[in-house]
């Protein structure tokens, strides 16, 4: 398969790009922030996502979805990134849907139609510390009666305070660092003993801290195998890591476009500052970094969709490279904008803040480079 979009994928892009640019440009995010929105996204926009078929795009056709893959999800996510659109798309339509693919028929029947219809939002409750370490799960799920009792905390849970469904990684066996003994649970909103507090992050997004104080769930809340949740967790994480890489790429591309435009428009010493070679070379370097990041992300998506075992490494490369490239682009973007780039009035700073959050989400570049090194035997 050639490493570029198929005609169908190009058509999806032709739909998604104007949709996001018109319905949810950066001004949309700014307006939500200025209104001190506490939901974290605009429910009316989420309903439009459902109408467009985006919410159910990864759901299998047998379960009422479009049966599309990581490449298609990436197309939507790149536009989300380009417009800095606050959206539960990544956690819900990519993360929860991927997790639920490993779930029971009942779980799929209960959640997938509601997700596809835009009626349910989901959140991924995985991280517990300040850095992404998915094997370090200390939140316990102890057997009790016909089900389990969940006790512990989760952090950095986007949409966790409003989600109808929480995908929770819990420890049912093994030591606190071990991949074995982790189990995934589907936990409903409003479960007794569950409290969620949303904090605003640097990029104005909302991130929940969840407390599980002896939250009771039935045995049928287990997604996939008891104690064997690592595989499903890894699948889910690879999907959202790749998705986050696409969103990062969108953030980087948006910042790059604004920066290039500024270099063309802004005049000093009587000429456009983009005529200075010192800036031209830096801009050309940013372009190059984004291009190779784009290739790495598409490669990971295609391999994921093909079920190729090489996808695992490609995902590490994609998330790490997208993080490196976009981090550089947004930093240089602010610098090249000069003083105006430091103002809240100008959008370029938003790109830098969003990039920082996405770079951290589901493992930063260092984390994935380290995994790549381990996988390569050094």
């Amino acid at each position, binding site marked *: 398969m*050639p*490493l*570029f979009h198929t005609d169908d994928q190009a058509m999806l892009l032709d739909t998604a790009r104007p949709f996001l640019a018109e319905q949810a440009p950066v001004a949309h995010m700014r307006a939500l922030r200025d209104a001190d929105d506490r939901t974290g996204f605009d429910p009316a926009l989420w309903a439009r996502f459902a109408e467009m078929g985006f919410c159910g795009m990864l759901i299998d056709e047998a379960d009422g979805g479009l049966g599309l893959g990581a490449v298609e999800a990436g197309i939507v996510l790149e536009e989300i990134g380009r417009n800095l659109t606050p959206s539960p798309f990544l956690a819900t339509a990519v993360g929860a849907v991927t997790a639920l693919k490993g779930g029971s028929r009942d779980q799929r029947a209960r959640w997938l139609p509601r997700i596809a219809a835009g009626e349910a939002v989901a959140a991924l409750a995985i991280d517990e510390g300040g850095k992404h370490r998915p094997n370090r799960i200390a939140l316990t799920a102890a057997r009790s009666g016909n089900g389990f009792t969940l006790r512990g905390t989760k952090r950095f849970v986007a949409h966790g305070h409003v989600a109808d469904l929480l995908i929770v990684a819990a420890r049912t066996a093994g030591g606190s660092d071990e991949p074995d003994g982790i189990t995934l649970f589907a936990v409903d909103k409003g479960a007794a003993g569950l409290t969620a507090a949303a904090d605003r992050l640097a990029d104005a997004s909302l991130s929940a801290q969840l407390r599980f104080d002896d939250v009771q769930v039935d045995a049928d809340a287990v997604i996939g195998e008891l104690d064997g949740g690592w595989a499903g967790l890894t699948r889910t994480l690879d999907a959202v890591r790749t998705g986050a890489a696409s969103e990062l790429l969108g953030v980087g591309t948006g910042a790059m476009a604004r920066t*290039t435009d500024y*270099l*063309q428009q802004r005049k000093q010493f009587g*000429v*456009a500052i*983009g*005529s200075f*070679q010192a*800036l*031209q*070379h830096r*801009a*050309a*370097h940013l*372009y*190059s970094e984004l*291009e*190779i*990041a*784009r*290739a*790495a992300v*598409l*490669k990971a998506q295609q391999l994921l969709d093909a079920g190729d075992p090489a996808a695992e*490494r*490609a995902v*590490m*490369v*994609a998330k*790490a*490279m997208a993080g*490196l490239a976009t981090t550089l682009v947004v930093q240089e973007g602010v610098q090249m904008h000069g003083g105006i780039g430091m103002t809240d009035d100008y959008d370029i700073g938003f790109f830098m803040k969003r990039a920082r959050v996405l770079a951290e989400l589901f493992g930063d*570049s*260092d984390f*994935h*480079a*380290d995994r*790549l*090194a*381990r996988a*390569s*035997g*050094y």
Partner: protein
Amino acid sequence: MSELDDFRAETRAWLEGNCPAEMRTPIRSDDDVCWGGRNPTFSSPEQKLWLDRMAERGWTVPDWPRDYGGGGLSPAESKALREEMARLGCRSPLYSFGISMLGPALLKYGTEAQKQDHLPKIARGQIRWCQGYSEPNAGSDLASLATSAEEDGDDFIVNGQKVWTSYADKADWIFCLVRTDKTVKQGGISFLLFDMASPGVSTRPILLISGYSPFCETFFDDVRVPKANLLGERDKGWDVAKYLLGHEREMISAMGLGTGGGPSLGKIAVEAIGAEPDGRLDDPVLRARIALFEVRAAAFRAMSERFLDELKAKRTHPAQPSMMKYVGTELNKQRHELMMAAGGSDALEWESDRSHGGAGARAWLRTKANSIEGGTSEVQLNIIAKRILALPGA
């Protein structure tokens, strides 16, 4: 199975049956590289056998038309062949500026007679070409070149000097930029093909920091070249030159992919330095540097695949080879810096047998030219800024 799957399966079987075992081992030094030519040197009978077998199928140039000695493969088939060769670790049977640089220009600008004359010999490795571009006073500002070609009946008389001519002392023919009009810069350049055995051609190898002399000074003293050897129109050679440079940049960018087949940087470092009980390199800072490098190298491999796919589908930006060249060469330089760091004092050996005559150290030094030859990194960045980013006055 699709036709492509069939092709892939047949190709795999053929390669397994026909690529000699020695040709599936990583290249250790320049001696392992086969350049062909009128007086070819082969480091082993297997090297010759591998070239002959591949040339017979047209697979030294899989995507060229069969009429010109190519394999006539579709883009998808060429890609499958490349992937299968990489999977088995097959060496490239033939390194050739005729294949990577002149061939594409001949296919686009050559007359039928020129194509028939030159392409099959390139494909079979019978004629080795060199490139006469740079001059002592025309480096990054290539279009200021002064080597002249004056009309004389059915011939041109060529006078002047080229420099950095790779392997000019070993090449059979040269493709050469000459000035046919002194009154205009780019519009006064023509593209000539001629035999290096012509009277009046002489070469002088230049000793480089690597201790090797891959580059030469090349002198032309009243060299007589038939007008029929003009590629493209007279005074329109700059178009040919730029087209060819795009292909040259692609070729050089491929260095960013690494040699392939050999041990990875991390493995080389573990071998040389040792590992912690959990397998991690016993040098955490170098390990981190290698890991971050490998992220970018892997991303660049994906980019190379994407670039080739887009190129075949005619959907790549014409200036994209500049990006490929820039990133690929900078990566290759970084790779060799890391190899030297991983190897420590062992990597410094210059003459010993176990280092294959200092192959590693010499290769490290050789890579420093990657970001200079074929247009410096700075020239590539200028091109990206001007032609892709549309920045003003670039």
